[in-house]
């Protein structure tokens, strides 16, 4: 464990939603939990998010959206990652996501959804447990 390289995470805000409290808090929290975190800032297109993910060579992409556009934007990020041959990247999401949308997003490759009230320790544990073994290092 000790000399393992830290897991790299991109926290991204696709769409025009400016509610970034959650995204920033998660970014800071994961950083404190030992991850290497890059935050895109707000107003990113799915394309910009994927370019950042590739450039930064992250293992995890965390998407945050509170405007209701998650049903369109989250799957698009997954799709673009797959098109770039990076289906190994773990994509998770958060924000104001109605419960009934969680399976919808799951079927489209968003592997977990964390909504309001989630402790960061839980997200950190989830990432560590769900990264493919060959991407752990």
């Amino acid at each position, binding site marked *: 464990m000790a000399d393992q390289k830290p897991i790299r995470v991109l926290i991204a805000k696709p769409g025009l939603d400016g509610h970034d409290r959650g995204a920033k808090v998660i970014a800071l929290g994961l950083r404190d939990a030992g991850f290497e975190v890059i935050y895109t800032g707000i107003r990113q297109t799915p394309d910009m998010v994927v370019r950042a993910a590739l450039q930064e060579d992250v293992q995890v992409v965390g998407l945050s959206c509170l405007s209701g556009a998650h049903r369109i934007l989250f799957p698009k990020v997954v799709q673009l990652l797959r098109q770039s041959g990076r289906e190994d990247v773990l994509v998770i999401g958060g924000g104001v996501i109605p419960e009934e949308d969680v399976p919808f997003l799951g079927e489209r490759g968003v592997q977990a959804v964390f909504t309001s*009230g989630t402790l960061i320790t839980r997200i950190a544990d989830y990432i560590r447990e769900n990264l493919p073994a060959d991407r752990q290092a």
Partner: protein
Amino acid sequence: MVTVFDPERLEEIEKKKKEWEETTLRENLRRLGMSESPCQFYTPLDVRDRDYLQKEGFPGQYPYTRGTYAVPVYATPFGEVLEGGVVAPRAGQYAGYGTVEETRDLWRAEKRRGANIAFDLPTQCGYDSDNPLAEGEVGRAGIAVDTLRDLETLYEAFEGLTTLDGMVSNFTINAPCNIILAMYFALAEKKGVPLAKLHGTPQNDILKEFVARGTYIFPPEPSMRMIRDTITYCSKYAPEMNVISICGYHMREAGASEVQTAGFTFAHAIAYVQLGVDARLDVDQFMRRFTFLDFGGGMDFWREIARARANRRVWARIMKERFGAKNPRSWIMSGGDSIFVGPSAYTLQRPLNNLIRGVIGGVMGYLGAGFTFGGFPWDEVYGLGHSYEARQLSLDAGRILRHEAKLKQVVDPLGGSYFVEALTDEVEEEIWDVIRKMEDVGGAVEAVKSGYTQREIARSAYKFHREIETGERVIVGVNKYTGEEELEVVPPRLVPHPYDPKKLESAAERQLARLARIKKERDQGRVDSALKAVHEVAKKEDENLIPYFMDAVKAYATVGEICDVLRDVFGEYEAPSIL
């Protein structure tokens, strides 16, 4: 020293307090096995040096500690209408569903007599519905307004019910505010209503967009110039229109503490007032048209009450001493004196608990002598679109506080409390400290440019979350009392909402067709020359852009096209990295 207490009596109190600590308190702690009391206790000694007339005074009088008005809003018939919380009195509830046609039909069915418009995010960010960046967002958080035609269609809702000079219009729009205002003015012209008879409030508070809400477009300086344009144009042609609604709420929701929210909001307000002063307008004239939204609120009951009381004092002093305003109307925060628990304190876990949190906010409002209501509907946590059941509960909560508990009987009931007065002083000092720090970094605009305010808010948000994570701050059902024996109470939401959410799915498509049609029908030559004029005038800092926006919108130029011209001249704001 002017004090309301007799100095000899105070000495006696001091002696007696020591005795009490050594006897009654010590004995009580011994029995409980505690080394020190978990509670604070206040006596006249904590407020011994206060000059009542200088610090507190009377409601409706400087320095307004005891209330903005002699008769608080909560005791007036106006308050009765307001007690529904989300129901604004004349403009109606903040709303916008799918497309303008759908919202028009819904408003008409509700027989609305005022407009309180929620714009979708592309409109707020100055993108047309057909811009690739708008994908997924068209008609989502509100309605798309691409051209004047959209506003014309929306206002058909009021035909036969009221006219533009008999109604209030509120626009939650910031960066493209003056374009929307130009549309409203153009609409009035077409209907033959003089601009001087228009009433309404645009949000127009760009500084908080940079630091909290995120719908900015242009860099801070040209953004501030456009707010100056609103102030100068309206003071001349539309003197009954409010020009701005200064907001603390969004910063509080974004994670700022109650004291930071107050300090940042006042720093922003100072920058806006300065725009009018620099334009050589009379402060007492243009301040009539400055309003505040509110300062948000959290669950720290006593500090929130003290903050509200201190706020009134701080703002009055800023206006009277710093800006030399003479009219008492300039010393108050018109509309900014509401006290409540904001939705960021609401939890998705055991969501009916939010009703209780809302009611606590309602009580805070009465105790802080501000405007108050029964709280946001408990199901706010699920996103936009409260259920009718939740709205009913909030409405009734407000009514119960008012009529059954009779909280409206007294003005500022905590005035004179040793504890609350001492805390009000303490919180006031903390607010001044935030304002001073903002001045130290060069004022509100510089603070935005350097990312200072953004960093401060992010730091507070993270600190708050850390407290939840470590258990230092208890949130019932979130980080404590979460065992298996607890029951998840979720009441049903069965009364159907008149807006069918399925319509949302096709809203974007319909809006795109609308936009394409308008673009085809309009006189392109007229659009081009109007946009060219906007481009020329944008380069001249001293000129007012609003008349040129009016020419452009009348030719059915789109919000996106006008904003693109401005982007070309002003550039775009680039958020500083703050993590």
